[in-house]
């Protein structure tokens, strides 16, 4: 089922949680709503589910207006952040609940319910837990039972609120791959909320980046990561170095360095901020014409297979962070040590027009 959301506005008291959000989700897609806490992503998900009502705007399910449809009639499955399993029911009864509460005429026979619940339990690979109570399960198990319960009513849309938020790092990684495989099997239209960019990048077909009640960008994981539309998206999807400088005739001027600009540097000769990811910073032992910024190494950190360098610019314009695989550090940078001097050259930069420049950034 496809979902078309247009111009959703929602306020709580004096606070505007959603400022006119429009979004289309195609049938069979897995979409992530990504943003910091307080950005309105959970509110949007609850409005799609019918758990909250928008102040204005419409929601279409398969082209039909569902804005006023009651939550029980929307045919959505909702997985709550804290799972909301019925604590006084066994796992089996939790999953069977949606079938048992149907009006008598539509209610499946007991045999059919049994079969269905067991099918779902094997789908989530937990058939052996049928008679346990929620309190006796681990976080990851609860999560999968909550999913099975939502799927039991054969929803046309699956909505998940921070599905991995309450789990520890290892379980979280396993579960999100599992969820992706499950989606590839079932192809039910799914929307999930997350504040974790890695999660969104790994699992989703498309990512909707939300900030302060507005959509910043919609796109595939590659699009939002490689071609962020706004400084916010750039910063939210990874670490970033900022260079203050100017653009003049396809040349970027940063401090005393002149860099050949690649990409669309369409700004005039005005002051600009250049955005560079840590892994896009080239660190050189020797100068490379005038195309580099000089810095000295403040610190070298090994984080597993990656090396992180903290660099202090010699022109006094703050610190930079560079990141590279261990091999490159050893071969190309000759394992530069603390206190040594280096030359830094951005391999890739991005410029946003002046009025975008927003909140505090790492500099």
């Amino acid at each position: 089922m496809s979902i078309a959301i247009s111009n959703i506005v929602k306020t709580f008291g004096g606070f505007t949680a959603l400022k006119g959000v429009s979004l289309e989700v195609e049938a069979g897609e897995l979409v992530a709503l990504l943003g910091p806490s307080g950005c309105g992503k959970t509110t949007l998900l609850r409005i799609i589910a019918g758990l909250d009502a928008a102040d204005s705007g419409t929601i279409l399910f398969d082209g039909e207006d569902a804005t006023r449809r009651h939550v029980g009639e929307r045919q959505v499955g909702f997985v709550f952040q804290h799972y909301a399993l019925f604590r006084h029911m066994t796992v089996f009864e939790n999953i069977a609940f949606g079938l048992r509460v149907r009006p008598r005429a539509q209610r499946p026979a007991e045999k059919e319910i049994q079969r269905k619940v067991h099918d779902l339990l094997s789908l989530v690979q937990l058939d052996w837990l049928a008679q346990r109570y929620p309190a006796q399960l681990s976080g990851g198990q609860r999560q999968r039972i909550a999913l099975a319960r939502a799927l039991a009513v054969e929803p046309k849309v699956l909505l998940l609120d921070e599905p991995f938020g309450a789990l520890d790092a290892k379980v979280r990684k396993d579960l999100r791959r599992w969820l992706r495989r499950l989606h590839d099997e079932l192809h039910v239209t799914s929307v999930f909320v997350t504040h974790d960019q890695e999660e969104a990048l790994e699992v989703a077909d498309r990512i909707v980046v939300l900030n302060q009640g507005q959509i910043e960008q919609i796109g595939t994981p590659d699009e939002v990561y490689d071609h962020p539309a706004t400084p916010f998206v750039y910063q939210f999807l990874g670490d970033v170095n900022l260079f203050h400088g100017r653009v003049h005739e396809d040349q970027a001027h940063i401090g005393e360095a002149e860099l050949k600009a690649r990409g669309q540097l369409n700004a005039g000769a005005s002051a600009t901020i250049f955005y560079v990811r840590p892994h896009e910073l080239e660190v050189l032992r020797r100068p490379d014409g005038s195309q580099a910024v000089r810095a000295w190494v403040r610190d070298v950190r090994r984080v597993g297979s990656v090396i992180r360098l903290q660099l202090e610019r010699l022109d006094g314009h703050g610190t930079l962070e560079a990141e590279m695989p261990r091999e490159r550090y050893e071969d190309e940078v000759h394992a530069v040590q603390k206190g040594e001097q280096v030359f830094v050259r951005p391999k890739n930069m991005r410029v946003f027009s002046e009025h975008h420049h927003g909140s505090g950034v790492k500099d």
Partner: protein
Amino acid sequence: MTALAHKKYSVIPGFSLAIGFTVLYLSLIVLIPLSATFLKSLSLGSEHFWEAVTSPRVLASYRLSFGASLLAAAINVVFGLLVAWVLVRYRFPGKRLVDALVDLPFALPTAVAGIALAAVYSRNGWIGHSLEAFGIKVAYTPLGVLVALTFIGLPFVVRTVQPILEDFDGELEEAAASLGASRLQTFLRVIFPSLWPALLTGFTLAFARAVGEYGSVIFIAGNRPMVSEITPLLIITKLEQYDYAGATAIAVSMLVISFTLLLVINGLQWWSHSRRSASASSGGHEPVVDKPGFARAHARPNPAAPIAERP
């Protein structure tokens, strides 16, 4: 109740029915009868009213009721803290039984408590007999009133202090000890400051309950006018003499006092609660706006909190 009309959207059904029934039942049982009483007192005229609530006999009963209630609540603060401390901190055989028994004054009908206390503290009673040897008479004196009011208020301080003591972070004590504080210093400077809002709340609860108490007192008090006659008893006496105006006037004066106390208690609880949660949530806080539907109550309702009558 127009203020109740303003409601946030929710998918959960039944609000109108639930709030409608709640307000209707509350009005019929509580609000209308109480308002009628206040209205009745207005019809007395201020002169009449003033005369009724300030006659010497009424004033004497106030002195006894309030004096004995204050004293009883003070005794309960000392011994309530002691009992709560022993129950939380020490182990001894029969502890769970003792813990359950603390609520006896809540569960025992006041008339039963009254005749039992009168029997125990009278001249032939188990304790009254021993006290008589020292020349102390309890039953049928103001002292008897004090005993009954102490009995009735006993659980309040214990049950307000107990959960605070249970939640008290042992690391604070260890930190104090590691900084060189003696055990007594640790108690006075570290433990006690976090207990005293609860002690004050317990004190006020016990006091408010004691002021209105009737059943457990009248059997042991002797009920001599000007000496051992409590205010609630005076209301009954006036009623029996068909002095409805006098009874109403005294009742209204008591209602005003109890409502004031209720406000004080609410204020105290709000205050001690905000003190506790302020210290508890010093970590990062997440804007609640993202999860409007289920702002979870932060107050952990304590199942062992004072259960029965809150005056």
